């Protein structure tokens, strides 16, 4: 079998906040069609990695390179990375009072279209698209007219993230602890939504603490991140082993 095209390639990535180095040499290759899980104890750098990939400027990249779709993205702004097809599902989705979900997504989708040289979608087409994508995560249409994440429950916020992902159709989705704060039903709905969006030419990185999400979103590869480095990479069975034995045997092994 010939290997799929490389989508994301991280080489020797170091990043800091102020004087504190958090990522200390990450190497990771994600190919089209793949799902990678990143696990690891608290404070190992998982959320930092996702924020650095998305271009958050509170982190400083001190060494290494990141190519996405064959393009060096470290010099790009967050919105340019979004246009390239990188999507981050936030661990704690942000509230924007007074801005409706419709208005927010319409602005985002039309910015993406403008970047591609396309005309903005008209209101009717946009609403049709929005409704069909909301169905993917079983969101009630009434959420369209509510303020972005304002007054949403934990589960509703995460569904809203996956809905936004469905609207933007990214090449690479980074799901940062999408399972945190979800009950079993919400977890199933969110995970099913992610699976429905899977295509041969896109990929996902799933950051999680727990096996239970990976029961639904089955990874091809599982990585363990510890103290800013990937210390173990294996198949999906590694997640179950971690669930049973914890991390100590890997860290000390």
């Amino acid at each position, binding site marked *: 079998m010939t290997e799929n095209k490389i989508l994301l390639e991280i080489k020797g990535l170091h990043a800091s906040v102020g004087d504190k180095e958090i990522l200390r040499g990450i190497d990771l290759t994600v190919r089209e069609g793949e799902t990678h899980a990143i696990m690891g104890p608290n404070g190992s750098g998982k959320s930092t990695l996702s924020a650095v990939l*998305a*271009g*958050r400027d*509170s982190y400083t990249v001190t060494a290494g390179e990141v190519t996405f779709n064959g393009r060096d993205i470290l010099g790009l*702004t*967050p*919105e340019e*990375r*979004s*246009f390239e097809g990188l*999507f*981050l599902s*936030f661990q704690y*989705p*942000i509230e*924007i*009072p*007074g*801005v409706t979900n419709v*208005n*927010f*997504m319409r*602005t*985002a989708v039309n*910015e*993406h279209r403008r*970047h591609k040289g396309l005309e903005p979608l008209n209101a009717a087409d946009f609403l049709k698209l929005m409704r069909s994508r909301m169905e993917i995560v079983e969101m009630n249409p009434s959420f369209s007219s509510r*303020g972005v994440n304002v007054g949403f429950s934990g589960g509703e916020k995460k569904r809203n993230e996956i809905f*936004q992902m469905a609207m*933007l159709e990214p090449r690479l989705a980074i799901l940062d602890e999408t399972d945190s704060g979800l009950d079993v039903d919400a977890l199933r709905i969110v995970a099913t939504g992610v699976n429905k969006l899977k295509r041969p030419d896109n990929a996902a990185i799933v950051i999680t603490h727990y096996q239970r999400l990976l029961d639904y979103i089955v990874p091809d590869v599982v990585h363990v991140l510890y103290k800013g480095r990937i210390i173990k990479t294996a198949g999906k069975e590694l997640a179950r082993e971690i669930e049973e034995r914890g991390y100590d045997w890997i860290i000390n092994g």
Partner: protein
Amino acid sequence: MSEKDDILKNIGSAEYKHGFETQVEQEFIPKGLNEDIIRLISEKKGEPQWLLDFRLKAYRKWLTMKMPTWAHLDIPEIDFQDIIYFAAPKKATEKKEIDPELMATFDKLGIPLHERSVLAGTAVDAVFDSVSVKTTFRESLAEKGIIFCSFSEAVRDYPDLVRKYLASVVPIGDNYYAALNSAVFSDGSFCYIPKGVHCPMELSSYFRINARGTGQFERTLIVADEGSYVSYLEGCTAPMRDENQLHAAVVEIVVLDNAEVKYSTVQNWYPGDAQGRGGIFNFVTKRGICKGVNSKLFWTQVETGSAITWKYPSTILKGDNSVSEFYSVAVTNNYQQADTGTKMIHIGRNTHSRIISKGISAGHSQNSYRGLVKILPGAENARNYSQCDSLLLGDKCGAHTFPVVENQNPTAITEHEATTSKISEDQLFYCRQRGIPEESAVGLIIGGYTKEVINKLPMEFAVEAQKLLEVSLEGSVG
């Protein structure tokens, strides 16, 4: 000037889209202020003796008064002898036909004066410097008994109405700028809605300052008779100049039994450049009285322009069960200063008022909310709710709130809430991750913050106001 200064200047002022000057032949009176000047203005306008007496009385009162200094504003000295108090385009005063040049000017400002235009649902009184050049839809409104005309015409054609209500809400000696206006006011709009008439279209006044070295002193009087309704909107712009120009207006509104008036303002006077040079001094007195039972007065203002704004649209709630609301967005950027808010004076029983104020400060600007809620002893069961929010963009600007509540009736209830916030890094990053660039993200977040107020504006103007907010704050983040 170095190239860099040039670029800075462009950033600060390039987006003020109404900064052009119209080349028309204008008639000026000599600059300066004295009784002869006032007589000359009155004569130019062919006024009756009673109005000249009114002006002279106001002028003599003004001479005894001092410029107010209590506002949180740094106002440079104003030389009142260095201002031209009357300027009018020559053709407008000579002929009945409107000068095509003026027609083109208002077209360019988005206020077409043809009745079959985009703003077909709105009647406009267009004021250019000291005169009203055109009032649209007068005839069709007159069929319903509605009077909508320039103030000068009202003095000529409806002197009894004008005499009855002029200065009945803002007395000539009310404050320094009101006294000045009462002495020298030139034109403005007059509006009377008869008993039981629901005005079928939006009425509006558009004020344009054009001439250099002048001030604009317009006077607006709106009377809503029993059971009537009107929605009124005013807009304003001025050319970009390095000089400061004074705009001191008076607006009076009288609302009788069971009548309702909505008064909306989109204030877009030239704000000055990025270094704080030029711009309009906007010192305005606006006050309405809910005179009758069950009367209602709603103020909505979007203030983005002017170098300095001193303005407190207020309501006297005299009639029992009367209601008033004040919804405001005030934006200051660069070196702009604004001290704005409202007064709600509760006199009648069961009177209700609501104040929603949203301040946005950016650049080196200073933005103050000043409010007075006064409940007199007879105002049984009066209610007030006030909410004052301030949003800061950057760390060189200031936001201040000066809310005062004087409650003299134990059955009255007042509530006050205030917040101060900044646009968070998290919000910006979230928007940008979704592909919304920083400037648009700021626009979006500001839009959300001000929505409650903008939604109160008539539809066509809400869209315009939204754009104006975004333009006013361009370049203020990052």
